[in-house]
């Protein structure tokens, strides 16, 4: 361990990159949230936000150690080495470029968060938030952190790993660790959780496409931290990653649009937003391995491949609701395997032979198996304990209202809510705590003569606290 020489420039860049990558998860929440129906947008966004809460803490407690602690058998890091993100700057994974320990650890935290949040798109509109949060905590610890260790932390799939004798595998910013991993996990969850009620027959078109495009834009913006930040300092490699990220994304937008123009006659905004993400995914592992020109080609291919892939779920009847598989798994594979063909150094098409290609395929397959098996175990365990699905009636009525007691929008204003009371002093009747509302047998039938509570309490400003005595009148409507 050599003495640590801080570099304010590199540190500034990684601090910014960490902030940028953190922003990706809210960006994702908009991208995903705009794509679901208006009556489930809040739940969708909450899946991203809750992943931020849960993963940040799991990462601090144990995840970071498992990923970047001292290697244990090539599989994970020593679990208790950096509990609470303790560590010296000499232990920083970016010590070589003068970036302090906590800056690098924070940067890595944001990768764990977004990887977990990505999965949620596969199971939109239908799962209990509690189960999702438990899943997120377990998955990031058991699946993400070890895989990050294997690829980046000195483990089996990295530069000194089991394939290194063939060629050194390349995953610059997370093609396997993030995208293939999340894509496979999404596929597993979509299968185990099962399809939405009405999938394939009812309309589930996006409710707010400007939100989707804004989300895609924030993802792109944040991805500069993801890819160019993965250079670990502010140098020419970061510049290469920055430029490749942009031009691959441009290429993928055009690739996706081409498929739409030919197949559907219409170029769409959802296609543009999706193309953006497909390009960003594909260039992630390759951002420093390609030139700007080959990055355009890789992006184009990713756009074509993902645009064709997203329709397959209807063929297989798998409700990967927001195309985590079609975009992240397929895009991640295009990028990871594409390196084998297009890498400036070692790519098959640039005269580098097949060894890099073989290694890239092997690493991708290994990651898929690892992620697939472990995610299956976690998902099944949760299925048989907490359970994944909300009741069908709740799902049909919209999870926002039935499980969060909220509505995304109240734009009309006139038909909306009309009675308000403070909830703080109120205590609910024990029987009412069902955790879900059946809207078909809902609150306070209007002719319920036995309604005990004041319906229209005097303005609270004027009196004592009448609401304190008001029991919540959640009674079941009965036909006469």
């Amino acid at each position, binding site marked *: 361990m050599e003495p640590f020489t801080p570099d304010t420039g590199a540190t500034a860049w990684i601090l910014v990159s960490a902030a940028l990558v953190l922003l990706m998860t809210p960006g994702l929440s908009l991208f995903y949230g705009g794509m679901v129906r208006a009556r489930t947008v809040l739940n969708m966004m909450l899946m991203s936000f809750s992943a931020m809460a849960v993963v940040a803490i799991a990462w601090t407690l144990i995840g970071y150690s498992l990923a970047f602690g001292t290697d244990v058998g090539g599989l994970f890091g020593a679990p208790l080495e950096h509990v609470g993100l303790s560590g010296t700057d000499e232990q920083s994974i970016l010590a070589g470029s003068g970036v302090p320990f906590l800056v690098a650890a924070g940067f890595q935290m944001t990768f764990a968060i977004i990887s977990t949040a990505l999965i949620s798109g596969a199971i939109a509109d239908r799962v209990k938030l509690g189960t999702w949060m438990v899943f997120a905590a377990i998955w990031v610890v058991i699946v993400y952190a070890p895989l990050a260790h294997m690829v980046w932390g000195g483990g089996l799939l990295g530069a000194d790993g089991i394939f290194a004798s063939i060629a050194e595998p390349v995953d610059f910013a997370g093609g396997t660790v993030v995208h293939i991993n999340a894509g496979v996990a999404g596929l597993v969850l979509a299968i185990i959780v099962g399809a939405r009620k009405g999938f394939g027959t009812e309309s589930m078109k996006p409710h707010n496409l400007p939100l989707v495009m804004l989300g895609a834009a924030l993802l792109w913006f944040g991805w500069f931290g993801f890819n160019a930040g993965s250079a670990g300092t502010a140098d020419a490699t970061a510049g290469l990653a920055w430029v490749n990220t942009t031009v691959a994304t441009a290429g993928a937008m055009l690739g996706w649009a081409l498929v739409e123009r030919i197949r559907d006659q219409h170029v769409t905004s959802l296609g543009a937003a999706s193309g953006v993400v497909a390009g960003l995914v594909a260039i992630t592992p390759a951002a420093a391995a390609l030139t700007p020109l080959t990055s355009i080609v890789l992006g184009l291919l990713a756009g074509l491949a993902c645009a064709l892939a997203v329709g397959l779920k209807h063929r297989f009847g798998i409700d990967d609701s927001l195309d985590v598989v079609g975009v992240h798994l397929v895009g991640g594979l295009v990028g990871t395997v594409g390196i084998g063909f297009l890498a400036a150094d070692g790519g098959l098409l640039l005269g580098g032979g097949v060894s890099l290609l073989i290694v890239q395929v092997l690493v991708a397959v290994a990651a898929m198996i690892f992620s697939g098996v472990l995610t299956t175990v976690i998902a099944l365990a949760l299925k048989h304990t907490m359970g994944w699905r909300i009741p069908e009636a709740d799902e049909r009525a919209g999870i926002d209202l039935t499980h969060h007691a909220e509505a995304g929008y109240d734009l009309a204003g006139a038909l909306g809510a009309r009675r308000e009371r403070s909830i703080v002093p109120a205590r609910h009747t024990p029987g009412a705590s069902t955790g879900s509302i059946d809207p078909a047998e809902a609150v306070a039938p*209007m*002719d319920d003569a036995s309604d005990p509570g004041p319906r229209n309490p005097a303005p609270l400003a004027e009196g004592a606290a009448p609401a304190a005595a008001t029991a919540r009148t959640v009674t079941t409507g009965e036909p006469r």
Partner: protein
Amino acid sequence: MKLITAIIQPHALQAVTDSLREYGVSGLTITEVAGYGRQGGHTEVYRGAEYTIDTIPKIKVEVLAENADESAIIDLVLAASRSGRIGDGKIWTTDVGTVVRVRTGERNADAV
């Protein structure tokens, strides 16, 4: 001529329109409404306050039809929208005087 108005659950709309179309109804008009009835409202929770929403979103379907079709159409709507649970809705009919097709100016039976 009759105007048949049905207030139904939003999710029953597809079944209702499909069955009416099959019967040969040549058109209908749909409005988003909200309603009270036996069915009550629901609760929404926001920072520091709980809101009771008295009304539930419903769909109003209006169909112009000849007198002879009235009861058949009512039966079709009933069949397609009935789940037996409160909130299923309401159907009513009113007499219509003149009916005009705007495109051609045709009147009454020809206009439906």
